[in-house]
């Protein structure tokens, strides 16, 4: 029998909430986590607003010991806090350091888009350039290596299954969840902590500012800056944070008798090969539609089963073509598209963490029976106007909500699509 995969725990460190409770209530209220970031103005960025989770150092000091903190940059802190929340939310105690038990059945795939670059820029480069290599200390490698966050989490939680970090640009968080789902489905693991983290660093955001893809017109009104699907969208708002889903084999979860949020019904990953209008920075619409259809096919459902779309929808020029791709892949005429929302309208674009944060939002909506608003698009983009009735501007309470689809489309023309279904026992 094919193994089924369910979500039994979640953790989130987002600009508008650093616990599931706070995050859910911010989503319901349509509360933006975007703020003015003074250092961006000092450094002559065009965009001076961004998403930065609040109170993280205090949370880290409460949860990690002094030695751990000395080796944890912001990317490690975000990812580890979210993983710890998800682990506890799934009903597990944090293992004692001195306890030699290893959870061989549990692993982690936690990725980042650009990751530990702040530590590289602030510590590695100046120290090495000035001929003081020995002053780097012992904690540099673990903070800048690609697998740093998953490695840190495996030590905190004594994980013994596959532990690694993926990277697929803005599709990273979705991809991690898809890969963890496949691993459990194949019988290679019972439980996987999956998601993404991205540090709040002007070094990460600088390249996007230089590309002129960040919102520059809303520096005085940060909460209005992230405007997916809006006619006055002016680029994406850089953001940061982490989220982790605790995925588990259904049989295992039922044996443990724990709460199940949702089932991961299907997933698909592909790439557009930078063809047919696709490029390093733009998606090939054919591959986007293939990815959505492949996820539906893996889920064993038809397009009519989808109740809500949580899109990639970043507030760039790509939003209208994304909506057209959703309509084509789901075979819906204008006016008949399911609810379509962008969590980014409230949290900005958290890059490697985006798909994970938005997946937590998606699973919360299914579990609690609501659709959060997509804010800042009262003036729907003219090309999206035919679908305007599908965009909720305020929270909808919908206990009948069953099936949601979440996608991420990243630089490199890579796509990831996930189908979640509310768990009904």
């Amino acid at each position, binding site marked *: 029998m094919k193994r089924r995969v369910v979500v039994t725990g979640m953790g989130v460190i987002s600009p508008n909430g650093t616990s599931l409770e706070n995050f859910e209530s911010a989503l319901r209220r349509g509360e933006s986590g975007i703020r003015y970031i003074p250092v961006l103005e000092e450094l002559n960025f065009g965009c001076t607003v961004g998403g930065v989770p609040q109170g993280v150092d205090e949370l880290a000091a409460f949860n990690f010991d002094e*030695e751990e903190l000395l080796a944890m940059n912001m990317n490690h802190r975000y990812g580890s806090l979210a993983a710890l929340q998800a682990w506890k939310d799934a009903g597990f105690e944090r293992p004692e350091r001195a306890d030699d038990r290893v959870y061989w059945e549990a692993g982690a795939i936690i990725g980042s888009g650009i990751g530990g670059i702040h530590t590289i820029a602030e510590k590695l480069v100046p120290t090495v350039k000035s001929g003081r290599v020995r*002053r780097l200390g*012992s*904690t540099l490698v673990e903070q800048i290596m690609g697998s740093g966050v998953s490695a840190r989490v495996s030590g905190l939680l004594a994980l013994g299954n596959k532990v690694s970090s993926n990277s697929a640009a803005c599709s990273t968080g979705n991809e991690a969840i898809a890969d963890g789902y496949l691993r459990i489905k194949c019988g290679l693991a019972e439980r996987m902590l999956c998601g993404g983290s991205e540090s709040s660093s002007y070094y990460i955001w600088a390249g996007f500012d230089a590309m002129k893809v960040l919102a520059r017109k809303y520096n005085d009104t940060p909460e209005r800056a992230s405007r997916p699907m809006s006619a006055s969208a002016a680029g994406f708002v850089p953001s940061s944070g982490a989220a982790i889903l605790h995925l588990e084999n259904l049989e295992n979860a039922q044996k443990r008798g724990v709460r199940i949020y949702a089932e991961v019904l299907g997933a698909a990953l592909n790439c557009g090969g930078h063809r047919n209008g696709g490029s390093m920075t733009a998606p090939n619409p054919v591959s986007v539609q293939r990815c959505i259809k492949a996820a539906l096919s893996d889920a064993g459902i038809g397009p009519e089963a989808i109740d809500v779309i949580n899109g990639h929808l970043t507030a760039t020029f790509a939003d209208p073509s994304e909506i057209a791709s959703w309509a084509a892949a789901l075979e819906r005429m204008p006016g008949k598209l399911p609810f379509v929302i962008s969590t980014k309208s409230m949290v900005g674009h958290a890059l490697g963490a985006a798909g994970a944060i938005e997946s937590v939002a998606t699973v919360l909506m299914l579990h609690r029976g609501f659709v959060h608003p997509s804010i800042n698009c009262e003036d729907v983009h003219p090309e999206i106007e035919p679908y305007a009735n599908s965009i909720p501007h305020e929270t909808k309470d919908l206990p009948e909500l069953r099936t949601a689809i979440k996608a991420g489309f990243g630089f490199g023309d890579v796509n990831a699509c996930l189908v979640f279904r509310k768990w009904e026992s």
Partner: protein
Amino acid sequence: MTEQEIFDKVVAILKPYVKNKDALAQVSHETNILDELKVNSARLVDVVLAFEDEFNIEIADEDADAVDTVGDAVRLIKEKLG
């Protein structure tokens, strides 16, 4: 700086890295840093950097390698301070 002051500062620098908190509670000059305090050996380079910063001295690798106990560290630092 008195030997006691150096000792107290050395113990304070070691504290975040100590896994055996019971041994730390009874720390003396004879306490072995790796075997008794259970400091992760990979972190010794960070401890040495912290000594350098705290006391404004430089510690050569061969001098650092000869440090086994808290007392060894105190003696080395005292020597460097002249």
